[in-house]
């Protein structure tokens, strides 16, 4: 589990969300983003974008599976890169 605060002015919108979805395809783990207890499947662009993640939100990345740790790091880096 990894947490990050969103600093990007437009939150987690279409661009970073599509990067996350595409990156998830490299992994077999189940990957989720969690905000205020709401969990979104990181493989679904619709679910990610609809979380309405905005500046200042704290997001937790949760992956379950064999490559969970690598997946969490990869997704963390995307969000950090967009921040």
């Amino acid at each position, binding site marked *: 589990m990894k947490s990050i605060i969103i600093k990007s002015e437009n939150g987690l919108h279409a661009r970073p969300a599509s990067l996350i*979805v595409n990156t998830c395809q490299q992994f077999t783990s189940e990957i989720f983003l969690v905000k205020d207890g709401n969990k979104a499947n990181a493989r679904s662009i*619709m679910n990610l*974008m609809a979380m309405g993640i905005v500046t200042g939100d704290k997001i937790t990345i949760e992956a379950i599976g064999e490559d969970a740790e690598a997946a969490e790091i990869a997704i963390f880096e995307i969000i950090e890169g967009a921040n």
Partner: protein
Amino acid sequence: MLKGLFKKTVQLSAPMVGQIIRLEEVPDEVFSGKMIGEGFAVNPASGQVVSPVDGEIIQIFPTKHAIGIKTKEGLEILIHVGIDTVELKGQGFEAFIEKGSQVKAGDLLLEVDKAYVEAQGKSMITPIVFTNPQNYKSIDVNYGESSGIVCEVKV
């Protein structure tokens, strides 16, 4: 009756009146590069957004600029009104449905203040994208002036 059961095509009418254009022409690489999925776009003449299909509203974004609809065939359709309109934070957008609403093709979803959006320097070009690529095979779009069925999706 059986024919209906085995129907493998989802037909979409235009969600907005205007010109149907290629996704590649959308001035945002997320859509033009098909990073989210296949689809088409409307360069709208007005700000009224109606449902292109019968289905369920699976998402309405907090900023009301985008809506997700799922058809009974399992096709997920994202209607993203305008480009970079997330930055307007809901200003100029009024929603007439909520998450979980059942809609019919032609039902009013959103009323968008087109003049306001454009005055903020945002394009009103609206991509319509199929976000679950594993659930459809191909799409066929009627480009040009919107009328009748503008897109058929093989599922």
